[in-house]
C-alpha cells in the first residue's frame, strides 16, 4: 500500500514518522533487519532536515511511501534552506579528531539503502529518494529441494480457470521457472513472496489455469497502475505441454472480464521491439499501438534477449479501451496533431478534438511535477500533474537535478486537457525532446502526450514493429531523433 505523510518539521515528529516507516516496511515485506536499516536512513534524513534546512524557520516535510514488486521507495521532500551535499561530505578523520560529524547522516542513509538519490529541484525544493530492494527466496532454491516424482508433465483434457490468489504464488513462480528457466523478462516472477505480496495488496490480479489434477498449466495477470484506473497486461505464461489449446485466449478473456468488473477503463501492453511476437499477440486481441518508447528498458533485465543486441530495449505501447465513456475532449499539440488524430481514430469511441485558441493563456497556477525513477532501466518519467505558468522553470530545475544521474532516457507526460499542452510541447522540442506517443487514461484517468529525451545512440533498424501504426510511429520518431542527433 502506498502512503503519504505531511509533517511539521519538528524534532518531536521524527519518532512518529520512523515508527510508521518501520511498520510500513515490515508490512510491505521487508525483514525486520532491513526495515530497521531503511527506517534509520529515513531518521537520518529527517534529522538533517530539521536541524539544518529548517534550523531558523518553521516548515513542513512530506514523505511518500511507494511499493513496487521488487523494491520499496521512500521519497522525502522539503523546501527548507538550500544546500549542496558535495560541500558537506563525511570524514571519519574529522569525526575522530575534532568530533565533527558533518555529513554523517547522509553517509549512513547512503549505506543503509540500495539506491540513495538527492535531487535539488530549485524553487520546487529538495528531494531525497531512499530505495531498498525486496530480496526474497528465489524459486530456484525451492525447486532444488523438489524431486521430479509427482510433478505433472502430461497434457490434460480439462482445465479449470480461477482468479489467482496469494496462495498460488509459489505455483506461479514454479511455472515461470519451468517454462523459461532464467529467460523470462520480469525478474519479480521468480520470487514467490513478491508475487504473494503483490496479489494480496491488490497491485496485480490474474487468472491461473489448473489441470483436473490441480497442477498449474498457465497464468496471466494485470498489473494495476498506481494513479489511474488502467492496468498493464504484463505477465503471461502457458506451460509447453498445454500450449495450442486456446488457454492464453481463455485467460485473456477472463482477465478482460475481471478488469471490467474492477472498473478499469483500459488495458495496455508494453511489447518488446527486439522481435514482434508480443506485438502480434496484442494485435490479435484488438490492442492498438499508441506509443513507441525508446530505450525504455535495460538489455540486462531480459535474460533471454540475444547477447549481441547492442542497445537498450525500446517498446511499443499497445492499448485496449474497456469503456465507451471516453468522451472528454482533448487539445492536440500542433506539431503532432496529424499523427495523434490517427492514433485516436484507431478506437471506435475516441474523444473529440478541441481547436487550439489563437492566443494560449497560461493557467494562473504553478506547474506541479512528479517524478518516477526506474532504477534498473536507468530512466525516469516526469508527470505534469498541473500545467501552470511555471512550466519551463519547473522543468529546467527538474532536468538539472537529474543531470548527475546520467539517465539513458527521460520521458515526460503532459495532459491533453489544457491548450497549454501546445506551447509546452514546443518548448520541450527546443530542449531536446521528441515525440513518443499517446498515453490514454494514463494518470488520473486523463489522456497524456508523452515526449522523450534519449541520451544514447540508437540503431532504428534494430527496432522491429508490427502494426501499421507502430510503423508510422517509428518513422516519425526516427526522423525526429536523427534530425536532433545530426544537429
Amino acid at each position: 500500500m502506498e502512503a503519504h505523510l505531511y509533517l511539521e518539521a519538528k524534532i518531536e515528529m521524527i519518532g512518529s514518522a520512523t515508527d510508521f516507516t518501520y511498520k510500513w516496511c515490515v508490512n510491505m515485506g521487508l525483514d525486520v533487519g532491513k526495515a530497521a536499516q531503511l527506517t534509520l536512513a529515513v531518521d537520518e534524513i529527517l534529522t538533517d532536515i530539521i536541524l539544518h534546512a529548517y534550523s531558523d524557520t518553521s516548515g513542513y516535510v512530506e514523505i511518500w511511501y511507494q511499493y513496487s514488486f521488487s523494491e520499496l521507495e521512500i521519497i522525502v521532500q522539503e523546501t527548507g534552506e538550500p544546500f549542496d551535499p558535495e560541500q558537506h561530505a563525511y570524514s571519519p578523520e574529522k569525526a575522530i579528531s575534532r568530533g565533527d560529524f558533518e555529513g554523517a547522516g547522509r553517509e549512513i542513509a547512503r549505506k543503509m539503502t540500495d539506491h540513495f538519490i538527492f535531487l535539488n529541484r530549485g524553487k520546487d525544493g529538495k528531494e531525497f529518494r531512499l530505495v531498498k530492494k525486496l530480496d526474497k527466496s528465489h524459486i530456484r532454491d525451492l525447486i532444488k529441494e523438489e524431486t521430479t516424482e509427482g510433478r505433472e508433465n502430461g497434457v490434460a483434457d480439462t482445465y479449470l480457470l480461477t482468479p489467482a490468489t496469494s496462495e498460488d504464488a509459489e505455483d506461479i513462480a514454479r511455472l515461470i521457472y519451468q517454462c523459461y528457466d532464467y529467460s523470462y523478462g520480469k525478474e519479480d516472477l521468480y520470487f514467490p513472496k513478491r508475487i504473494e505480496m503483490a496479489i494480496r495488496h491488490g497491485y496485480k490480479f490474474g487468472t491461473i489455469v489448473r489441470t483436473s489434477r490441480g497442477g498449474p498449466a498457465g497464468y496471466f495477470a494485470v498489473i494495476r497502475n498506481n494513479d489511474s484506473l488502467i492496468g498493464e497486461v504484463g505477465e503471461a505464461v502457458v506451460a509447453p505441454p498445454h500450449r495450442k489449446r486456446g488457454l492464453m485466449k481463455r485467460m485473456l478473456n477472463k482477465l478482460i472480464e475481471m478488469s471490467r468488473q474492477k472498473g478499469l477503463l483500459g488495458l495496455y501492453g508494453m511489447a518488446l521491439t527486439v522481435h514482434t511476437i508480443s506485438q502480434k499477440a496484442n494485435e490479435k486481441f484488438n490492442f492498438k499501438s499508441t506509443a513507441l518508447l525508446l530505450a525504455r528498458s535495460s538489455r540486462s533485465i531480459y535474460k533471454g534477449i540475444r547477447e549481441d543486441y547492442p542497445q537498450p530495449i525500446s517498446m511499443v505501447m499497445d492499448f485496449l479501451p474497456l469503456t465507451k465513456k471516453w468522451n472528454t475532449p482533448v487539445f492536440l499539440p500542433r506539431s503532432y496533431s496529424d499523427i495523434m488524430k490517427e492514433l485516436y481514430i484507431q478506437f471506435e469511441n475516441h474523444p473529440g478534438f478541441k481547436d487550439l485558441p489563437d492566443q494560449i493563456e497560461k493557467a494562473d497556477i504553478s506547474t506541479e511535477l512528479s517524478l518516477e525513477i526506474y532504477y534498473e532501466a536507468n530512466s525516469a518519467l516526469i508527470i505534469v500533474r498541473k500545467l501552470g505558468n511555471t512550466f519551463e522553470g519547473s522543468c529546467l530545475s527538474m532536468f538539472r537535478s537529474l543531470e548527475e544521474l546520467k539517465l539513458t532516457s527521460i520521458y515526460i507526460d503532459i495532459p491533453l486537457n489544457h491548450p497549454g499542452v501546445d506551447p509546452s510541447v514546443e518548448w520541450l522540442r527546443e530542449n531536446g525532446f521528441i515525440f513518443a506517443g499517446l498515453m490514454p487514461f494514463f494518470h488520473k484517468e486523463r489522456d497524456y502526450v508523452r515526449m522523450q529525451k534519449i541520451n544514447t545512440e540508437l540503431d532504428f533498424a534494430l527496432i522491429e514493429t508490427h502494426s501499421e501504426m507502430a510503423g508510422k510511429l517509428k518513422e516519425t520518431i526516427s526522423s525526429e531523433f536523427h534530425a536532433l542527433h545530426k544537429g
Partner: protein
Amino acid sequence: MHYTKDRQSLQVRLQGDFNLNAVRQIRELFDDREELTVDLSHSRFVNSEAILYLQSLMQSGKTIRLKEPPKIFFEVLHILGLHESWDLKKIVES
C-alpha cells in the same frame, strides 16, 4: 524513557530508538555526571546524533555503557569508521 540517577551516574532504559529526541532528553538528565548507561534492548537503531553525543562524552573523559545494542549499531560504527577507535569491550554489555 525510564531512568535512575545519583550524583555520579545516570541509567537510562530507552523505550524507543536512540535518536535526536532521546539524545536531547539524556543530555538534560546527565548534566555533569560521570557515568552513563543506556539500555538499548528496545531500540531498533542508534543514529548518528546519538553516536556523536556518545563520542563527545567519551572525549571529555566520561564513562559510557550500552546494554544490548541492536546489530545495526555496529554497522553504523563501521560506516562512520569508528569501530576501531571505540573500545567496544568496555562500552558494550550484552
